[in-house]
Every structure is written in C-alpha cells, then in structure tokens.
C-alpha cells in the first residue's frame, strides 16, 4: 500500500525529539527552551499520526490525540511566553541561568 515503512517515520520522530530535547536543555534563552519543547511535541505528533496511519486507520483516536496535543501546546506556549515577558519586565533578562531567585 504505502511505500514508506512505518519505521522511517518513527526514526524521523525520534531524531526530532532528541534535537528538541537538546535545544530545550542546552539553550540559555528561555524562549529558545520553549522552542525546543515545541519540537519535542511535534515529534510526538508525528508518532501519533504515523501509528494512526499504520495501525488504526479506521479510528479517530490517533489524529484526535494529535489535535489535543496541538491545543495544549498552544496554551502552554501562550502562558509560558507571558511568564517570560513578566520576568523580562522585572529582571531585564530571559537567561535561565540568571533567573534563580527561587534557588535558595
């Protein structure tokens, strides 16, 4: 049927997830970290849709799950960026290494 095997999609998703994780953990800028997290969520969505296509193509659950993930990602980005802007206003920085008020 489809000439692209499922494993190809899964490999792309795995690599995308790892790159996103790297971006989220290594970036200094809080917005950069958020962007990394968005990549990871995208990788998850690739997996969800790929499994929907190859295992449960008649059902809705796979794609519906992806829609919900997209919704949550958007809500998360909205609140996270609002937090970043609030921190920027008071601390004049979005560098996570300098935002350490709660460490002690």
């Amino acid at each position, binding site marked *: 049927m489809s000439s692209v095997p499922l494993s190809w999609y899964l490999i792309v998703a*795995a690599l995308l997830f790892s790159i996103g994780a790297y*971006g989220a953990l*290594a970036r200094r*800028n809080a917005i950069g970290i958020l962007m*990394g997290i968005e*990549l990871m969520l*995208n990788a998850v969505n690739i997996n969800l849709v790929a499994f929907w296509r190859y295992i449960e193509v008649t059902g809705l659950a796979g794609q519906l799950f992806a829609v919900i993930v997209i919704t949550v990602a958007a809500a998360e980005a909205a609140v996270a960026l609002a937090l970043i802007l609030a921190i920027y206003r008071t601390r004049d920085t979005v560098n996570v290494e300098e935002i350490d008020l709660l460490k002690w």
Partner: protein
Amino acid sequence: MTAEQVVFVLAAVVTLGSALGMVTTRSVFVGALWMIAVFGGVAALFILLGAGFLGIVQILVYIGAIAVLILFAIMLTPRVMGDPNAPRYNRQWPLVAVMASALASLLVALVLRTDWPLAQEGAPTITGFAVELGKGFMTTYILPFEVASVLLLVALIGAIVIAREE
C-alpha cells in the same frame, strides 16, 4: 524509489535539517524561523501520512499562531535580542549534547529492532475526515472537546493576568 519515498525524504531532510539549524543558530529570531521550517516539514509529513486535515491545522496553529506568538515575544524582549554577543548555550551543553545523541541512538536502535506492522490495506479516510472528527467531538469524544475550551479559557485568563503591566 517511488514518488512517495522521494517526498518523504525531502520532508524529513527539511524537518531535521531545520531542527539542527534551530538549536545551533546564535540568533533566537533566526532560530524561530528555522522552527517554522520544521513545522512546515512536519505538516508535509502529516499530509504524506494521509492526515490532510491535521497537516493544514499544523500550519494554521503552529505557524500561524504559536510561531507568531514566539516571534512577538522575541520582539518584545529587545535588550536580549539586540545583544549579538549573548552566548547561545548554558554551561551544561556538552553534557546535554552527549545525552541527546545517546537518546537518539537508543530510540533509533529500538525502532530498527522492532518488527512493525505494514500499512493497513485500504486508503485512509483522507476526504471527509473533518466531518468524522466533528461527529466524534459530538459523540464519543465530547469530554476532550469541552475540556479543550476550558483549557483555552484558563490559558487566556492566566496569560492576560501575567503579561499585562499593572
């Protein structure tokens, strides 16, 4: 190589290449542009998988809403974005790089060792998926539908309260 495979490889290269560009570039704004290219590549993968509706939604929400929101946030933090000498990584980045590569190799090895089922016969419901989704939201999946609106309301109120200058 079939046409589908060619398109897949193209989309995958765009996605992963842009993802690498995103995490390695110095400027956050350029990083966000790379991120948009990733979103476009993922949308192409969705469409290739027969999830046309989701591919369009991916562009609509990720590029049209989330990416624009991130670009706006970058514009609103000028003292950070205007500084060309700001280092892009924190102190732990070499360690993270090792761990991320380890994770990637582990996952890929796992995927390759598993015997995945082949694609099911019969074309997926590409056309009319939106109708099916609408029916699903009104019947089986009514709870996620309404919870999503509550989530959006909470996010809206929370973000407005946090972001506004008092």
